[in-house]
């Protein structure tokens, strides 16, 4: 799925994945439950989107335990940061060119 056209990355087609990247871009590390609170999606849905981003090597996963509860934390990789920044640039460019058209 490593397709990118003019900086647009296929992985960010989904709104949830785009929002996930936005949250991770401004937080060093964030846990599963906090992400769930922002996105208002089900556990399974969120997990599958996170898995997709992990497969692209855009995010890092750290698993640990708080007592007996699993506590998984996510953070952006260098690749993830670059890809997201490129995606934003491409978005801006596109809007700019559309604005200039009559």
């Amino acid at each position: 799925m490593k397709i990118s056209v003019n900086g647009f990355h296929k992985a960010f087609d989904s709104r949830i994945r785009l929002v996930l990247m936005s949250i991770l871009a401004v937080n060093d590390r964030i846990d599963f439950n906090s992400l769930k609170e922002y996105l208002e999606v089900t556990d399974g849905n969120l997990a599958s989107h996170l898995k997709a981003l992990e497969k692209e090597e855009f995010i890092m996963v750290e698993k640990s335990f708080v007592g007996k509860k699993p506590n998984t934390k996510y953070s952006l990789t260098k690749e993830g940061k670059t890809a997201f920044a490129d995606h934003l640039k491409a978005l801006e460019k596109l809007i700019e060119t559309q604005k200039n058209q009559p």
Partner: protein
Amino acid sequence: MEAEKDYTRDIAEIRSMMERSSKFMSLSGWAGIMAGIYALAGALIAWKVFDFNPDELFYKNPGPGSGFRNVFLLSGLILVLALATSIFDSFLRAKKRGEKAWNVLSRRLIANMSAPLVSGGILILVLIAYGLIGLVAPLTLIFYGLALYNAGNFTFNEVRILGIVQITLGLISLHMIQYGLLIWAVGFGLAHIVYGIYMHYKH
């Protein structure tokens, strides 16, 4: 044109999510206004009822029985009232937005505020024990201002400006010990109320 709308919405969503996930936004102007009112009432009671208006740096006997104890208890009460109001208010705001008030963001905000507040608080208690009553008002303003300045990174930017105002008032009042209580009332009372009204209309 349909596509443009979509991309603009994408950008708007990215921006709002970045802010929402990195800053604690469940603070309202109301909490600021209420804190200001408590502070003004407290300053007035301290001045009129307990006849507290230090005009010198040093008081020889600030211990029990000097009337200072009442002022001490009064300031504790104001602090508890102001804290309770803002916690309650944050709780309601967060609930309205379907978020939790006690989350990563509020923890980060509190952790960053408590370093200047706790160190300042302990310093002030020690100075009170030494009888340096005149320094209490300026130093509470300065350390509270530092805490707010820090907090500005983790909540609304305007909090940082409120912090600068408090620090400035604190430094000014160091040079005018006789106006300590008045300047304290301006900082904790008036500045909070002005800030609260501004935030209430802006957000």
